[in-house]
């Protein structure tokens, strides 16, 4: 049962950890690209 806990917690850590890491990567890359572009050429603004 205690072993189970290890697997279960690892699953949650792996899942949300990877998603958070990827989100951070996307935001950082997005920042780098958008700060070099003028506001009027950004279609989402």
């Amino acid at each position, binding site marked *: *049962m205690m072993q*189970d*806990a290890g*697997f*279960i*917690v*690892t*699953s*949650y850590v*792996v*899942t*949300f950890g*990877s*998603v958070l890491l*990827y*989100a951070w990567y*996307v*935001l950082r*890359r*997005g*920042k780098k*690209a*958008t*700060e*070099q*572009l*003028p*506001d*009027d*050429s*950004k*279609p*989402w*603004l």
Partner: protein
Amino acid sequence: MVHIATGRSTQSTTGTHATRILGIVTLVGVAWLILFGLFLSPADKNQGESVRILYLHAPSAWLAYLAFVVTAAASALYLFRKTHSLAWDRLAGASAEIGVLFMGVTLVVGMLWGRLTWGVFWRWDARLTTTAFLFVTYVGYLAVRRLGGTPEQRARRSGVLALLAVLEIPLVHFSVKLWRGLHQDASVLRPDGEVKLDGLMLFTLFSGIITFTLMYAWLVIHRTRTLTAEDMLDDVGLELALAERRRESIPRTNEENGALLS
């Protein structure tokens, strides 16, 4: 005349008011899912605590499939519409990247769950094998997107590849199903891991799906915007390089002019 975009950049992220709200709601959803998944929902009669992993594994798989469907649809929209709008291509690429992420998570978490439930990390059944196949296929798709060339070349190559994947996947799935049908697995204990969920457990699973969908939406919006910005920068870079070349071909002083003419 070469027009190089001028103007200031005051908003230096891919975020907008809407995505910030989406992000907050998503984080709330994550907290909610952890709360219910790890603590508030009960253990399963047969599977025990390991069912808690399913609240991650199943939504993650479904979102990966959704992401790949979006990639295929966006690829078709790029290829078959006369406008060939690159916006579709960027959506396809962003969605595929996220799909690969979720698929990877699905496989890893699935292996952990399998270890608990069946005692083995892997089983050569149709679903798992097709999942692994899907993962490798889209890793290949992402590699093709990085081959270089113009955005149009990238869009066409990867678009065709995405549609070919739509052809292959049922073929592979069917082949593996036929293949594994030969081997009647004698594991009477836990057939396929299909668990009957009801009440709070079903609610938790449902929350999982919603949370993961929110995560997908937030990620795909930001990733697509980043790709858009990067493509624009490439264009600007090209224009700047061309302008430089043109400037270099103009003689700088009259002396040079005279030297050239004599």
